[in-house]
Protein backbone atom coordinates (compact mmCIF):
# COMPACT_ATOMS: atom_id res chain seq x y z
CA UNK A 1 0.00 0.00 0.00
CA UNK A 2 2.77 2.45 0.94
CA UNK A 3 4.55 1.76 -2.32
CA UNK A 4 1.32 2.23 -4.28
CA UNK A 5 0.76 5.66 -2.80
CA UNK A 6 4.40 6.63 -3.22
CA UNK A 7 4.25 5.56 -6.87
CA UNK A 8 1.15 7.67 -7.36
CA UNK A 9 2.96 10.68 -5.96
CA UNK A 10 5.99 9.92 -8.10
CA UNK A 11 3.79 9.98 -11.21
CA UNK A 12 2.39 13.30 -10.07
CA UNK A 13 5.84 14.90 -10.08
CA UNK A 14 6.91 13.27 -13.34
CA UNK A 15 6.31 16.49 -15.29
CA UNK A 16 8.71 18.44 -13.09
CA UNK A 17 10.08 21.41 -15.02
CA UNK A 18 13.66 22.56 -14.53
CA UNK A 19 14.04 24.56 -11.35
CA UNK A 20 14.91 28.23 -11.57
CA UNK A 21 18.27 29.16 -10.15
CA UNK A 22 17.71 30.28 -6.60
CA UNK A 23 19.01 33.75 -5.86
CA UNK A 24 20.80 32.99 -2.61
CA UNK A 25 21.87 36.60 -2.07
CA UNK A 26 18.27 37.71 -2.56
CA UNK A 27 17.01 35.10 -0.11
CA UNK A 28 19.47 36.28 2.50
CA UNK A 29 18.51 39.91 1.97
CA UNK A 30 14.80 39.15 2.29
CA UNK A 31 15.41 36.97 5.34
CA UNK A 32 17.54 39.62 6.95
CA UNK A 33 15.00 42.35 6.20
CA UNK A 34 12.14 40.25 7.58
CA UNK A 35 14.17 39.60 10.70
CA UNK A 36 14.89 43.30 11.26
CA UNK A 37 11.28 44.18 10.61
CA UNK A 38 10.15 41.61 13.16
CA UNK A 39 12.59 42.95 15.75
CA UNK A 40 11.56 46.48 14.94
CA UNK A 41 7.89 45.50 15.15
CA UNK A 42 8.48 43.95 18.55
CA UNK A 43 9.72 47.31 19.78
CA UNK A 44 6.27 48.80 19.23
CA UNK A 45 3.71 48.67 16.48
CA UNK A 46 2.99 52.39 16.87
CA UNK A 47 6.60 53.23 16.16
CA UNK A 48 6.47 51.22 12.96
CA UNK A 49 3.55 53.24 11.64
CA UNK A 50 5.13 56.58 12.40
CA UNK A 51 8.47 55.48 11.00
CA UNK A 52 6.84 54.20 7.84
CA UNK A 53 5.16 57.54 7.28
CA UNK A 54 8.43 59.35 7.83
CA UNK A 55 10.37 57.08 5.52
CA UNK A 56 7.83 57.45 2.76
CA UNK A 57 7.75 61.20 3.15
CA UNK A 58 11.51 61.35 2.79
CA UNK A 59 11.99 58.86 0.00
CA UNK A 60 8.84 59.09 -2.03
CA UNK A 61 7.30 62.53 -2.01
CA UNK A 62 3.95 63.02 -3.69
CA UNK A 63 0.63 61.36 -3.09
CA UNK A 64 -2.23 59.98 -5.11
CA UNK A 65 -5.81 59.39 -4.05
CA UNK A 66 -7.26 58.53 -0.70
CA UNK A 67 -5.85 61.54 1.09
CA UNK A 68 -8.01 64.51 1.94
CA UNK A 69 -6.80 67.65 0.21
CA UNK A 70 -6.80 69.76 3.32
CA UNK A 71 -3.98 68.32 5.34
CA UNK A 72 -2.14 65.30 6.56
CA UNK A 73 -3.80 64.47 9.85
CA UNK A 74 -7.46 64.31 10.78
CA UNK A 75 -8.52 64.48 14.43
CA UNK A 76 -10.55 61.46 15.38
CA UNK A 77 -12.74 61.01 18.39
CA UNK A 78 -12.68 57.49 19.67
CA UNK A 79 -15.51 55.89 21.67
CA UNK A 80 -15.69 57.06 25.28
CA UNK A 81 -13.28 55.35 27.62
CA UNK A 82 -14.51 53.49 30.68
CA UNK A 83 -13.94 56.47 32.95
CA UNK A 84 -16.22 58.55 30.76
CA UNK A 85 -13.45 60.66 29.22
CA UNK A 86 -13.11 60.82 25.47
CA UNK A 87 -9.79 59.86 23.94
CA UNK A 88 -8.74 61.93 20.95
CA UNK A 89 -5.95 60.95 18.68
CA UNK A 90 -5.10 61.24 15.02
CA UNK A 91 -5.01 58.84 12.13
CA UNK A 92 -1.51 58.92 10.58
CA UNK A 93 -1.42 59.35 6.83
CA UNK A 94 0.47 57.01 4.54
CA UNK A 95 0.77 59.01 1.32
CA UNK A 96 0.98 56.70 -1.66
CA UNK A 97 3.96 57.43 -3.92
CA UNK A 98 3.76 58.56 -7.51
CA UNK A 99 4.17 55.56 -9.77
CA UNK A 100 5.66 55.07 -13.21
CA UNK A 101 2.59 54.82 -15.48
CA UNK A 102 4.49 52.47 -17.81
CA UNK A 103 5.17 49.90 -15.10
CA UNK A 104 3.05 47.46 -13.12
CA UNK A 105 3.13 46.95 -9.36
CA UNK A 106 2.07 44.38 -6.79
CA UNK A 107 1.69 44.16 -3.02
CA UNK A 108 3.52 41.66 -0.85
CA UNK A 109 2.33 41.15 2.70
CA UNK A 110 4.48 40.18 5.65
CA UNK A 111 3.56 38.25 8.77
CA UNK A 112 0.41 39.33 10.54
CA UNK A 113 -0.36 39.73 14.22
CA UNK A 114 -3.36 40.45 16.38
CA UNK A 115 -3.46 43.78 18.23
CA UNK A 116 -5.86 45.54 20.58
CA UNK A 117 -7.37 47.41 17.64
CA UNK A 118 -7.85 44.28 15.54
CA UNK A 119 -9.40 42.51 18.55
CA UNK A 120 -11.97 45.33 18.72
CA UNK A 121 -12.73 44.88 15.04
CA UNK A 122 -12.99 41.11 15.38
CA UNK A 123 -15.47 41.35 18.23
CA UNK A 124 -17.65 43.93 16.47
CA UNK A 125 -17.56 42.00 13.19
CA UNK A 126 -18.71 38.69 14.65
CA UNK A 127 -21.27 40.40 16.92
CA UNK A 128 -22.82 41.95 13.83
CA UNK A 129 -22.67 38.80 11.71
CA UNK A 130 -24.08 36.42 14.32
CA UNK A 131 -26.86 38.86 15.18
CA UNK A 132 -27.88 39.66 11.60
CA UNK A 133 -27.32 36.22 10.03
CA UNK A 134 -28.46 33.59 12.50
CA UNK A 135 -28.33 30.82 9.87
CA UNK A 136 -24.64 31.49 9.12
CA UNK A 137 -22.12 28.69 9.46
CA UNK A 138 -18.36 29.33 9.32
CA UNK A 139 -16.56 26.53 7.49
CA UNK A 140 -13.32 25.06 8.79
CA UNK A 141 -11.08 25.20 5.72
CA UNK A 142 -7.98 23.90 7.45
CA UNK A 143 -9.07 20.47 8.54
CA UNK A 144 -12.16 19.68 6.51
CA UNK A 145 -14.36 21.59 4.10
CA UNK A 146 -17.39 19.73 5.44
CA UNK A 147 -17.06 20.89 9.05
CA UNK A 148 -18.16 24.08 10.81
CA UNK A 149 -16.21 26.10 13.36
CA UNK A 150 -17.42 26.79 16.88
CA UNK A 151 -17.86 30.54 17.59
CA UNK A 152 -14.73 30.64 19.78
CA UNK A 153 -12.71 29.48 16.78
CA UNK A 154 -14.06 32.01 14.28
CA UNK A 155 -11.17 33.67 12.38
CA UNK A 156 -9.76 36.89 13.86
CA UNK A 157 -8.69 40.13 12.21
CA UNK A 158 -4.99 40.91 12.26
CA UNK A 159 -2.53 43.70 11.51
CA UNK A 160 -0.14 43.25 8.62
CA UNK A 161 2.27 45.36 6.63
CA UNK A 162 2.18 45.38 2.86
CA UNK A 163 5.19 46.38 0.75
CA UNK A 164 4.81 47.72 -2.79
CA UNK A 165 6.92 46.00 -5.45
CA UNK A 166 7.63 46.68 -9.10
CA UNK A 167 6.61 43.79 -11.33
CA UNK A 168 8.99 42.48 -13.97
CA UNK A 169 8.41 44.42 -17.15
CA UNK A 170 8.58 41.56 -19.62
CA UNK A 171 5.59 39.66 -18.25
CA UNK A 172 1.88 40.02 -18.92
CA UNK A 173 -0.38 39.29 -16.03
CA UNK A 174 -3.85 38.40 -17.31
CA UNK A 175 -4.40 35.93 -14.48
CA UNK A 176 -2.56 37.69 -11.69
CA UNK A 177 1.01 37.20 -10.59
CA UNK A 178 3.05 35.42 -8.02
CA UNK A 179 5.86 36.37 -5.69
CA UNK A 180 8.52 35.39 -8.21
CA UNK A 181 7.25 38.10 -10.56
CA UNK A 182 8.59 40.83 -8.28
CA UNK A 183 11.43 42.94 -9.60
CA UNK A 184 12.30 45.27 -6.72
CA UNK A 185 10.73 47.03 -3.77
CA UNK A 186 9.60 50.64 -4.09
CA UNK A 187 10.27 51.09 -0.39
CA UNK A 188 6.63 51.94 0.32
CA UNK A 189 5.23 49.97 3.27
CA UNK A 190 1.73 50.42 4.67
CA UNK A 191 -0.15 48.75 7.54
CA UNK A 192 -3.65 47.35 7.20
CA UNK A 193 -6.13 45.48 9.37
CA UNK A 194 -8.45 42.73 8.28
CA UNK A 195 -9.46 39.13 8.10
CA UNK A 196 -7.09 38.98 5.16
CA UNK A 197 -3.52 40.26 5.57
CA UNK A 198 -2.94 41.10 1.88
CA UNK A 199 -4.13 44.24 0.07
CA UNK A 200 -6.50 43.52 -2.80
CA UNK A 201 -7.20 39.85 -2.08
CA UNK A 202 -10.61 38.85 -0.84
CA UNK A 203 -12.57 35.76 0.09
CA UNK A 204 -10.95 34.68 3.36
CA UNK A 205 -14.07 33.42 5.09
CA UNK A 206 -15.90 30.37 3.78
CA UNK A 207 -19.50 30.54 4.87
CA UNK A 208 -22.75 28.68 4.45
CA UNK A 209 -26.13 30.33 4.84
CA UNK A 210 -28.28 27.44 3.74
CA UNK A 211 -26.58 24.43 5.26
CA UNK A 212 -25.70 21.24 3.39
CA UNK A 213 -26.27 21.30 -0.35
CA UNK A 214 -26.27 25.10 -0.62
CA UNK A 215 -23.63 27.06 -2.54
CA UNK A 216 -20.48 28.21 -0.76
CA UNK A 217 -20.18 31.88 0.18
CA UNK A 218 -17.05 33.88 0.82
CA UNK A 219 -16.57 37.11 2.74
CA UNK A 220 -13.82 39.50 3.63
CA UNK A 221 -13.28 42.76 5.46
CA UNK A 222 -10.17 44.93 5.45
CA UNK A 223 -9.37 48.43 6.78
CA UNK A 224 -6.84 50.69 5.01
CA UNK A 225 -5.27 53.86 6.40
CA UNK A 226 -5.71 57.36 5.04
CA UNK A 227 -3.61 58.23 2.01
CA UNK A 228 -2.73 54.65 1.08
CA UNK A 229 -5.57 53.87 -1.33
CA UNK A 230 -7.78 54.97 -4.18
CA UNK A 231 -11.46 54.22 -3.58
CA UNK A 232 -12.35 53.81 -7.26
CA UNK A 233 -11.95 50.29 -8.70
CA UNK A 234 -9.30 49.60 -11.35
CA UNK A 235 -7.70 46.52 -12.89
CA UNK A 236 -4.92 46.01 -15.43
CA UNK A 237 -6.20 45.65 -19.02
CA UNK A 238 -7.30 42.11 -19.91
CA UNK A 239 -6.73 40.92 -16.35
CA UNK A 240 -9.42 38.61 -15.00
CA UNK A 241 -7.49 37.85 -11.83
CA UNK A 242 -9.52 40.18 -9.63
CA UNK A 243 -6.30 41.83 -8.50
CA UNK A 244 -6.63 45.62 -8.39
CA UNK A 245 -3.96 48.04 -9.61
CA UNK A 246 -2.22 49.61 -6.58
CA UNK A 247 -3.38 51.81 -4.87
CA UNK A 248 -6.91 50.81 -5.89
CA UNK A 249 -8.60 48.39 -3.54
CA UNK A 250 -10.91 46.59 -5.96
CA UNK A 251 -10.56 45.42 -9.56
CA UNK A 252 -13.02 46.84 -12.12
CA UNK A 253 -14.99 48.61 -13.47
CA UNK A 254 -14.53 47.95 -17.20
CA UNK A 255 -15.57 44.45 -18.32
CA UNK A 256 -12.61 42.27 -19.29
CA UNK A 257 -12.05 39.07 -21.24
CA UNK A 258 -8.85 37.09 -21.10
CA UNK A 259 -7.72 33.76 -22.39
CA UNK A 260 -7.50 31.24 -19.58
CA UNK A 261 -5.78 27.90 -19.30
CA UNK A 262 -6.49 25.29 -21.98
CA UNK A 263 -7.47 28.04 -24.42
CA UNK A 264 -10.44 29.05 -22.36
CA UNK A 265 -11.77 32.57 -22.46
CA UNK A 266 -12.88 34.05 -19.19
CA UNK A 267 -15.00 37.16 -18.85
CA UNK A 268 -15.61 39.36 -15.84
CA UNK A 269 -18.64 41.66 -15.96
CA UNK A 270 -18.34 44.60 -13.59
CA UNK A 271 -21.00 47.04 -12.48
CA UNK A 272 -20.06 50.07 -10.39
CA UNK A 273 -22.09 52.73 -8.62
CA UNK A 274 -21.75 55.19 -5.77
CA UNK A 275 -23.84 55.94 -2.70
CA UNK A 276 -23.69 58.09 0.41
CA UNK A 277 -23.79 56.79 3.99
CA UNK A 278 -25.97 58.16 6.81
CA UNK A 279 -23.26 60.61 7.88
CA UNK A 280 -22.13 61.57 4.42
CA UNK A 281 -19.63 58.72 4.00
CA UNK A 282 -18.68 58.02 0.40
CA UNK A 283 -19.58 54.46 -0.57
CA UNK A 284 -18.18 52.87 -3.73
CA UNK A 285 -20.29 49.88 -4.79
CA UNK A 286 -19.13 47.12 -7.13
CA UNK A 287 -20.62 43.87 -8.35
CA UNK A 288 -18.82 41.37 -10.56
CA UNK A 289 -19.66 38.12 -12.33
CA UNK A 290 -16.96 35.71 -13.55
CA UNK A 291 -18.15 33.67 -16.53
CA UNK A 292 -16.29 30.81 -18.19
CA UNK A 293 -16.10 30.33 -21.94
CA UNK A 294 -19.11 28.00 -21.94
CA UNK A 295 -21.29 30.50 -20.11
CA UNK A 296 -20.87 28.90 -16.71
CA UNK A 297 -21.12 31.45 -13.88
CA UNK A 298 -18.13 30.68 -11.70
CA UNK A 299 -18.27 33.51 -9.17
CA UNK A 300 -20.52 36.46 -8.25
CA UNK A 301 -19.42 39.20 -5.89
CA UNK A 302 -20.79 42.30 -4.18
CA UNK A 303 -18.32 44.67 -2.57
CA UNK A 304 -18.24 48.17 -1.10
CA UNK A 305 -15.48 50.58 -0.17
CA UNK A 306 -16.68 52.89 2.60
CA UNK A 307 -14.54 55.99 3.17
CA UNK A 308 -14.76 56.89 6.85
CA UNK A 309 -14.61 60.41 8.34
CA UNK A 310 -11.08 59.72 9.64
CA UNK A 311 -9.88 59.11 6.07
CA UNK A 312 -9.60 55.34 6.38
CA UNK A 313 -11.36 52.94 4.00
CA UNK A 314 -13.25 49.78 4.88
CA UNK A 315 -13.63 47.17 2.13
CA UNK A 316 -16.34 44.57 2.68
CA UNK A 317 -16.90 41.78 0.19
CA UNK A 318 -19.48 39.01 -0.17
CA UNK A 319 -19.34 36.42 -2.96
CA UNK A 320 -20.93 33.15 -3.98
CA UNK A 321 -19.54 30.15 -5.85
CA UNK A 322 -21.19 27.10 -7.48
CA UNK A 323 -19.38 24.72 -5.13
CA UNK A 324 -21.65 23.04 -2.62
CA UNK A 325 -21.16 22.88 1.13
CA UNK A 326 -21.33 19.36 2.51
CA UNK A 327 -21.83 17.68 -0.85
CA UNK A 328 -19.74 15.08 -2.58
CA UNK A 329 -16.55 16.34 -4.23
CA UNK A 330 -17.50 17.87 -7.55
CA UNK A 331 -21.07 18.78 -6.64
CA UNK A 332 -22.00 22.17 -8.11
CA UNK A 333 -25.13 24.24 -8.47
CA UNK A 334 -26.11 26.88 -10.99
CA UNK A 335 -25.75 30.33 -9.38
CA UNK A 336 -26.91 32.34 -12.37
CA UNK A 337 -30.01 33.46 -10.48
CA UNK A 338 -28.55 33.39 -6.98
CA UNK A 339 -27.01 36.49 -5.41
CA UNK A 340 -24.26 36.84 -2.80
CA UNK A 341 -25.72 36.78 0.71
CA UNK A 342 -24.99 40.45 1.50
CA UNK A 343 -26.24 43.24 -0.77
CA UNK A 344 -24.67 46.73 -0.95
CA UNK A 345 -26.75 48.14 1.92
CA UNK A 346 -25.90 45.22 4.19
CA UNK A 347 -22.20 45.46 3.34
CA UNK A 348 -22.16 49.21 4.09
CA UNK A 349 -24.11 48.67 7.32
CA UNK A 350 -21.48 46.15 8.41
CA UNK A 351 -18.63 48.54 7.60
CA UNK A 352 -20.29 51.34 9.55
CA UNK A 353 -21.08 49.09 12.52
CA UNK A 354 -17.36 48.67 13.25
CA UNK A 355 -15.40 50.95 15.61
CA UNK A 356 -13.33 53.58 13.78
CA UNK A 357 -9.93 52.38 14.89
CA UNK A 358 -6.61 54.04 14.14
CA UNK A 359 -4.66 52.00 11.58
CA UNK A 360 -0.96 52.25 12.39
Amino acid sequence: MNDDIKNLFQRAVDDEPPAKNLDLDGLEKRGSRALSRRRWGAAGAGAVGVAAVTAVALVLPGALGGAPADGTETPVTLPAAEDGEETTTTQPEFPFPELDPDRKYMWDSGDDEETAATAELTEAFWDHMTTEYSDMGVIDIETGYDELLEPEDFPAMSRSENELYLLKLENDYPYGYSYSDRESSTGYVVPMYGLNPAVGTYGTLWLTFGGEGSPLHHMDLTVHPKGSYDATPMSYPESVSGTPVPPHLLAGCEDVTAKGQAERNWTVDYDCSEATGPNGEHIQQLSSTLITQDGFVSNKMNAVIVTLPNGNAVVVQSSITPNVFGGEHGDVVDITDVEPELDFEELAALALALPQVIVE
Partner: protein
Amino acid sequence: MRPDQTTEFREYVVSRQERMRRFAYLNCGDWHRAEDLVQTAFVRLYGAWNRAAKSSLDSYTRRIIVNALIDERRRGWFRRERPTDTMPDRPVVSDDGTQRMAVMQALAALPAKRRATLILRYWEDLSVEETARVMRCSVNTVKSQTARGLQTLRGMVIESISDTPQGANK
Protein backbone atom coordinates in the same frame (compact mmCIF):
# COMPACT_ATOMS: atom_id res chain seq x y z
CA MET B 1 23.67 35.65 11.26
CA ARG B 2 27.33 34.76 11.65
CA PRO B 3 29.41 34.00 8.53
CA ASP B 4 29.62 30.28 9.37
CA GLN B 5 25.85 30.16 9.82
CA THR B 6 25.36 31.94 6.50
CA THR B 7 27.49 29.27 4.84
CA GLU B 8 25.45 26.53 6.51
CA PHE B 9 22.22 28.21 5.42
CA ARG B 10 23.39 28.44 1.81
CA GLU B 11 24.52 24.82 1.75
CA TYR B 12 21.21 23.70 3.19
CA VAL B 13 19.18 25.70 0.65
CA VAL B 14 21.16 24.34 -2.31
CA SER B 15 20.95 20.75 -1.09
CA ARG B 16 17.23 20.84 -0.28
CA GLN B 17 15.82 23.08 -3.00
CA GLU B 18 14.60 20.31 -5.30
CA ARG B 19 13.27 18.07 -2.57
CA MET B 20 11.33 20.88 -0.94
CA ARG B 21 10.02 22.02 -4.32
CA ARG B 22 8.52 18.59 -4.96
CA PHE B 23 7.02 18.52 -1.48
CA ALA B 24 5.51 21.96 -2.07
CA TYR B 25 4.23 20.95 -5.52
CA LEU B 26 2.39 17.91 -4.19
CA ASN B 27 0.81 20.21 -1.61
CA CYS B 28 -0.22 23.00 -3.99
CA GLY B 29 -0.39 21.44 -7.49
CA ASP B 30 1.46 24.24 -9.29
CA TRP B 31 5.20 24.28 -9.96
CA HIS B 32 5.49 28.08 -10.04
CA ARG B 33 3.64 28.37 -6.80
CA ALA B 34 5.75 25.60 -5.36
CA GLU B 35 8.85 27.68 -6.11
CA ASP B 36 7.25 30.67 -4.41
CA LEU B 37 6.38 28.59 -1.38
CA VAL B 38 9.89 27.20 -1.11
CA GLN B 39 11.42 30.66 -1.41
CA THR B 40 9.07 31.95 1.28
CA ALA B 41 10.01 28.99 3.46
CA PHE B 42 13.74 29.60 3.03
CA VAL B 43 13.34 33.30 3.82
CA ARG B 44 11.50 32.42 7.02
CA LEU B 45 14.01 29.69 7.80
CA TYR B 46 16.79 32.29 7.59
CA GLY B 47 15.08 34.29 10.29
CA ALA B 48 14.71 31.24 12.51
CA TRP B 49 17.98 29.52 11.73
CA ASN B 50 19.24 29.12 15.29
CA ARG B 51 15.93 27.81 16.55
CA ALA B 52 15.44 25.48 13.57
CA ALA B 53 19.00 24.16 13.63
CA LYS B 54 18.50 22.92 17.18
CA SER B 55 15.79 20.52 16.09
CA SER B 56 15.37 19.37 12.50
CA LEU B 57 15.87 21.73 9.60
CA ASP B 58 13.86 19.53 7.25
CA SER B 59 10.93 19.29 9.63
CA TYR B 60 11.06 23.01 10.26
CA THR B 61 11.14 23.85 6.55
CA ARG B 62 8.31 21.46 5.71
CA ARG B 63 6.28 22.95 8.53
CA ILE B 64 6.83 26.47 7.14
CA ILE B 65 5.72 25.31 3.69
CA VAL B 66 2.52 23.75 5.02
CA ASN B 67 1.78 26.84 7.12
CA ALA B 68 2.45 29.16 4.18
CA LEU B 69 0.06 27.12 2.06
CA ILE B 70 -2.69 27.25 4.65
CA ASP B 71 -2.00 30.96 5.06
CA GLU B 72 -2.30 31.51 1.32
CA ARG B 73 -5.59 29.66 1.30
CA ARG B 74 -6.71 31.94 4.12
CA ARG B 75 -5.67 34.95 2.09
CA GLY B 76 -7.73 33.87 -0.86
CA TRP B 77 -4.59 33.33 -2.95
CA PHE B 78 -6.31 30.75 -5.15
CA ARG B 79 -9.06 33.08 -6.16
CA ARG B 80 -6.63 35.91 -6.79
CA GLU B 81 -3.93 34.24 -8.79
CA ARG B 82 -5.53 31.41 -10.74
CA PRO B 83 -9.00 32.02 -12.12
CA THR B 84 -9.22 28.39 -13.16
CA ASP B 85 -9.18 27.49 -9.51
CA THR B 86 -12.52 29.21 -9.17
CA MET B 87 -13.89 26.63 -11.55
CA PRO B 88 -16.19 24.22 -9.81
CA ASP B 89 -14.50 21.01 -8.86
CA ARG B 90 -15.56 18.28 -11.22
CA PRO B 91 -15.09 14.52 -11.13
CA VAL B 92 -11.88 13.28 -12.68
CA VAL B 93 -12.13 13.32 -16.46
CA SER B 94 -9.45 11.16 -17.98
CA ASP B 95 -9.77 12.50 -21.50
CA ASP B 96 -6.00 12.61 -21.75
CA GLY B 97 -5.63 9.46 -19.68
CA THR B 98 -2.99 10.79 -17.37
CA GLN B 99 -2.78 9.39 -13.91
CA ARG B 100 -0.87 12.49 -12.91
CA MET B 101 -3.93 14.65 -13.40
CA ALA B 102 -6.05 12.22 -11.44
CA VAL B 103 -3.62 12.24 -8.52
CA MET B 104 -3.34 16.01 -8.47
CA GLN B 105 -7.11 16.46 -8.64
CA ALA B 106 -7.56 14.02 -5.79
CA LEU B 107 -4.94 15.81 -3.71
CA ALA B 108 -6.55 19.16 -4.49
CA ALA B 109 -9.83 17.81 -3.13
CA LEU B 110 -8.28 17.25 0.28
CA PRO B 111 -8.15 19.91 3.00
CA ALA B 112 -4.63 21.34 3.34
CA LYS B 113 -3.68 19.62 6.58
CA ARG B 114 -5.01 16.23 5.50
CA ARG B 115 -3.16 16.51 2.21
CA ALA B 116 0.09 17.46 3.94
CA THR B 117 -0.28 14.57 6.35
CA LEU B 118 -0.59 12.07 3.50
CA ILE B 119 2.38 13.55 1.66
CA LEU B 120 4.56 13.51 4.74
CA ARG B 121 3.65 9.90 5.46
CA TYR B 122 3.81 8.40 1.98
CA TRP B 123 6.10 10.70 -0.02
CA GLU B 124 8.54 11.83 2.62
CA ASP B 125 8.34 8.45 4.42
CA LEU B 126 7.97 10.05 7.85
CA SER B 127 6.66 7.95 10.70
CA VAL B 128 3.37 8.78 12.39
CA GLU B 129 5.31 10.36 15.26
CA GLU B 130 7.55 12.42 12.96
CA THR B 131 4.52 13.57 10.99
CA ALA B 132 2.80 14.61 14.21
CA ARG B 133 5.83 16.73 15.12
CA VAL B 134 5.85 18.50 11.74
CA MET B 135 2.10 19.05 11.82
CA ARG B 136 2.14 19.92 15.53
CA CYS B 137 -0.76 17.65 16.27
CA SER B 138 -1.35 14.39 18.11
CA VAL B 139 -0.45 10.96 16.82
CA ASN B 140 -4.15 10.09 16.79
CA THR B 141 -4.90 13.11 14.61
CA VAL B 142 -2.26 11.96 12.13
CA LYS B 143 -3.83 8.52 12.06
CA SER B 144 -7.36 9.81 11.51
CA GLN B 145 -6.26 12.37 8.89
CA THR B 146 -4.30 9.66 7.08
CA ALA B 147 -7.24 7.25 7.07
CA ARG B 148 -9.65 9.86 5.75
CA GLY B 149 -7.17 11.09 3.16
CA LEU B 150 -6.52 7.59 1.89
CA GLN B 151 -10.25 7.03 1.61
CA THR B 152 -10.49 10.01 -0.75
CA LEU B 153 -7.49 8.85 -2.78
CA ARG B 154 -8.96 5.38 -3.08
CA GLY B 155 -12.26 6.78 -4.25
CA MET B 156 -10.87 9.22 -6.76
CA VAL B 157 -7.60 7.80 -8.00
CA ILE B 158 -6.97 4.18 -7.28
CA GLU B 159 -10.30 3.08 -8.76
CA SER B 160 -9.72 5.20 -11.83
CA ILE B 161 -6.38 3.56 -12.49
CA SER B 162 -7.19 0.08 -11.31
CA ASP B 163 -6.39 -1.39 -14.68
CA THR B 164 -2.78 -0.32 -14.37
CA PRO B 165 -0.07 -2.56 -12.88
CA GLN B 166 0.52 -0.47 -9.77
CA GLY B 167 -3.02 0.66 -9.15
CA ALA B 168 -5.15 -0.88 -6.45
CA ASN B 169 -3.90 -4.39 -6.51
CA LYS B 170 -2.77 -4.47 -2.89
